[in-house]
């Protein structure tokens, strides 16, 4: 069955360092891979989308890589700040047309220590 795995343990990072989050998937050939941020009791907030034919995408302090051979995406936050503390969700869009909705991982809880 299709499966998305993210670090289930909380990730503690010192302020100013780079945080790297991992998303691995199996039995899936996604057209798009997306990253969202979710704060407690709130809806996810869209951060970045990367397509299957793209290797890397950047937006300000954020960078996403996508390796369809390894079936893995890495999400980086550089110069991390305490305000970056949240749960980060990886999501796959299989056919690229939204027909099956997004399949989400359970998320990684990121804590940036001052």
């Amino acid at each position, binding site marked *: 069955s299709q499966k998305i795995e993210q670090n289930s343990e909380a990730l503690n990072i010192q302020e100013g360092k780079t945080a790297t989050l991992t998303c691995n998937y199996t039995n899936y050939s996604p057209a798009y891979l997306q990253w969202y941020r979710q704060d407690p009791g709130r809806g996810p907030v869209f951060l970045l989308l990367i397509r299957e034919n793209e290797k890397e995408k950047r937006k300000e302090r954020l960078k996403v890589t996508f390796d369809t051979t390894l079936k893995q995406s890495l999400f980086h936050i550089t110069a991390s700040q305490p305000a970056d503390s949240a749960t980060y969700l990886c999501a796959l869009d299989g056919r690229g047309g939204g027909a099956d909705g*997004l399949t989400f991982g359970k998320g990684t809880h990121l804590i940036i220590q001052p």
Partner: protein
Amino acid sequence: EAGVTQSPTHLIKTRGQQATLRCSPISGHTSVYWYQQALGLGLQFLLWYDEGEERNRGNFPPRFSGRQFPNYSSELNVNALELEDSALYLCASSWDRGQYGYTFGSGTRLTVV
């Protein structure tokens, strides 16, 4: 620009009752998606509406249903509520079927007692 709005914020129902949740998408977005986020689980895809029609549904029983109105707002109905239906229900909208990401509302917290 107003984001995706959902109402009510919280809803408490008794087992066996029906719940109705509402969602207004971003202006110009014609697609609305519903997700369930139960405690300890990831977001699970429930339903997709586009141009007033149900286009697809996730692996949920028929007592989860809904509709989309001509103004693209949407309603999710959950009949014969069970305790395990307690969850955060999230609505998302997009244009161009999510090729540029999805915008989520803040959700409705449904508690079944």
